């Protein structure tokens, strides 16, 4: 009875280790597929490369800790987006380095041509980002996700696990508010 019980326990242990190895391989695949997404979500909030990498890395660590509980693997990317977004917002509130914003490549390209045009471009980008930062969080996330990697409404709806109609209406509201903010800013 005792030895049979021990053999049963040992068998379960081996099975658990095998399952663990499978989970690690699966997580590695998802890390490769989703690292750019996590980084860009964090970058949309922080707009600082190093900070965004730190936050994305923290999100992956967190995801790895709880990965074995995630039965539906198709939920990994939405889950990662939510975790990354939340961590980035926390970092934005606390980290003073967010004040040092990294300019986009378009700014750099503009700067290469004409210094005055580059200054205008930087100013316009700053106004756009200020308007986006002023959006309510739900609308802000929709705007960011729709514009990451050319996601459309359906892609954003999948990441947010929301109906496409909800995402569409939020996107419409967000654009309305952006129009108002930017119109006021240009006047």
């Amino acid at each position, binding site marked *: 009875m*005792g030895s049979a*019980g*021990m053999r049963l*326990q040992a068998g*379960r*242990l081996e099975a*658990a*280790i095998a*399952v*663990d190895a499978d989970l690690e391989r699966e997580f590695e695949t998802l*890390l*490769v597929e989703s*690292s*750019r997404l996590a*980084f*860009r979500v964090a*970058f*949309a909030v922080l*707009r600082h*490369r190093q900070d*965004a*990498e730190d936050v*994305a*890395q923290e999100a*992956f*660590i967190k995801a*790895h*800790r709880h990965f*074995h*509980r995630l039965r539906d693997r198709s939920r990994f990317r939405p889950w990662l987006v939510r975790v990354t977004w939340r961590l980035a917002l926390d970092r934005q509130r606390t980290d003073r380095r967010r004040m040092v914003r*990294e300019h*986009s*490549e*378009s700014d750099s390209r503009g700067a290469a041509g004409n210094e005055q045009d580059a200054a205008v471009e930087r100013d*316009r*980008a700053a106004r*756009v*980002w200020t*308007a*986006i930062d002023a959006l309510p969080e739900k609308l802000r996330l929709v*705007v*960011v996700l*729709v*514009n*990451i990697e*050319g996601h459309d409404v359906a892609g954003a709806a999948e990441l947010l696990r929301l109906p496409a109609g909800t995402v569409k209406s939020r996107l419409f509201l967000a*654009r309305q508010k*952006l*129009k108002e903010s*930017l*119109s006021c800013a240009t006047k």
Partner: protein
Amino acid sequence: MRDEMITDVDRQIQEALAVDPSPDFQARVRIRLSEEPQRHRPGMGWLVSGVIGLAAVAALAMFVSSRDDVGPRAGDFVAPPTQSAAALEPVPPPATEQPVARPLRRPTRVNAAETVLVPAAEREAFRRFLRAVTENGLPYAVPLDARDDAPLSVPGITIDPIVIAPIDSTAE
């Protein structure tokens, strides 16, 4: 005009977000993951609990079996009060019919204690002796005025003389 503005805003956002992580980003994540403590596997709690439970049951079984092999210990029982002192008193000893041992900790060991501490044959012999002493008195008499330090009086010993007949030398 406003649609152009929205298009422009979308373009701005897309360009701003067209940034990739550094090439070593995934490698740094892997290093961090390797530094993480071992993740708790699902179901391992039950496994560990099962192993600990089996070990505890085995240890308990070994402990109980080892105690049974030793048998009753002297400290577990109290020997009966010396019945000789009780029996030597004038009152007849009904106590001889009382249980010989009183268990202190484990009542189930009473019979075993009787067997171990006072064998039945010895107990019966002692009981007969006490009964005989009670009914008939001691088998020897001790003078009431006897003193331990008094000199012993030994009566005189008379030895009759031995008569030796003379040897007849003429017989050869």
